[in-house]
């Protein structure tokens, strides 16, 4: 574990220095401009629009930062040959993969939380609503983003950085449409198709099972029991993805 933490800390230092936190600044500016614009065209629904569009922006910005950093995470070490430095020491592939992932997860946490906190304060100041639910929704968005990041890290062990990132985005979209795949498993008579659909359903992360955004704007509320179950499922999914990534990476030669 010590090795993983050492690698995590190093990865955190590396990604933070990559000026990734400037995403928060871009987000902040976009939110300020958007809030002024929304005030004029939403017929006094500024608070709702800011929260809803703001959380969507947090998701998209967070996703972009996560998948593009994750796609490059392992590839960069190999291209820059720092893998020699790492693996000449008693570090296993699993420790390396988990460490890299943890470091990036911490960076992405700061980025996503920064955006969420900013959204909270802007909504409060501009629209007069102190919506704590925005912060809660931000945390749940972070969980989704981090799961996609884990899958992207898996792709990055054998694919190029760009391809891994694109596949990560595809996984995010597929994860939002998980229930559609479930429907496919029940369609038609061909057993092979049903089995294949079921395998795809299992392989894709179910990211849409819990969505906090509607509750932020008054559409329904969060079922905490189900949310806890979902978080447990996603944690297990992440671990599986990272272990598979470690297994693939272990077979690599440098």
């Amino acid at each position, binding site marked *: 574990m010590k090795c993983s933490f050492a690698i995590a800390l190093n990865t955190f230092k590396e990604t933070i220095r990559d000026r990734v936190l400037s995403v928060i600044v871009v987000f902040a500016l976009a939110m300020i401009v958007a809030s002024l614009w929304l005030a004029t065209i*939403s*017929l006094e629904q500024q608070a*709702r629009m800011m929260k809803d569009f703001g959380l969507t922006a947090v998701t998209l910005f967070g996703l972009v930062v996560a998948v593009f950093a994750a796609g490059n995470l392992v590839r960069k070490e190999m291209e820059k040959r720092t893998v020699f430095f790492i693996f000449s020491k008693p570090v296993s592939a699993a420790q390396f993969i988990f460490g890299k992932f943890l470091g990036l997860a911490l960076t992405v946490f700061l980025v996503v939380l920064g955006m969420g906190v900013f959204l909270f304060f802007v909504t409060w100041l501009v629209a007069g609503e102190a919506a704590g639910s925005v912060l809660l929704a931000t945390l749940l968005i972070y969980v989704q983003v981090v799961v996609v990041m884990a899958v992207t890290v898996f792709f990055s062990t054998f694919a190029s950085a760009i391809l891994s990132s694109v596949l990560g985005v595809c996984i995010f979209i597929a994860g939002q449409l998980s229930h559609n795949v479930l429907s496919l498993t029940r369609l038609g008579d061909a057993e092979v198709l049903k089995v294949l659909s079921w395998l795809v359903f299992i392989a894709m992360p179910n990211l849409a099972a819990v*969505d906090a955004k509607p509750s932020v*704007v008054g*559409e*329904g509320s969060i079922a905490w029991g189900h949310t806890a179950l979902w978080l447990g499922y996603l944690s297990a999914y992440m671990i599986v993805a990272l272990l598979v990534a470690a297994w693939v990476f272990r077979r690599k030669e440098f």
Partner: protein
Amino acid sequence: MVRRILLVLIFVACALVVVGYQATRPAKSASSPRVFVPSAQFFTDFSPSFRTTIADAYWLRTVQYYGEHVTGDRRFDSLWPMLDLVTRLSPHFVRPYRFGAFALLEAGRPDLGYELLKRGHDANPNEYALLTHLGFFVYTYGSNPDKDVLAAEWYQKASELPGAPDWVARVAARLLTKGGERQKATMQWAQIYGDGDQYSRDRALVELDSLLPVDPAARQREVAVLAEFVPPYLFDEFSRALLGGD
């Protein structure tokens, strides 16, 4: 040096072309009154996580669409589909029901406005404003001979909801009177006296004075019945005002 100057000149020339082209584009013409609006089911099937965001985006589109056409060709062919989409994707988003009902009225479709309000009430039973709008629609555009009483019922329900202002109950009572429901009207006014502020009490007394029988005995009997609707600490004053004397 010459190359540098040339590069700067090329840059300036191209920048001028870019700015010039964009600056001379004609203003956006009003959109067609018919726009493509997918069904709510499409979004429900394909994007459960972003339903409210899509609803909000279409809400903004609806406001722009209405604004363009109410000042332009006054054709609102796609207004109902847009409002339908927004409210199906986000049933607890109240503003579209309220704005949409009156926009549909403007579009010459009070029937759709009424339907929209009813849907809004079903999804948001505690929003008093939707009920007052329903009452308004029934009273103003209904063809039922009992529309006054029907409208009064909506207002009455609205007055019982949290946050409903005092005038809602008064409107219900006036409509009951207008609809010939004297007894119901008196009960409503008595309720208003009991629940309302000073202005409401003053109004209630004026209305009750004209609704209650002139005959003192009959008046006394009816005032006694109204005790049910007036708190005990107010009833003495209430009955003195209507019956006169000590």
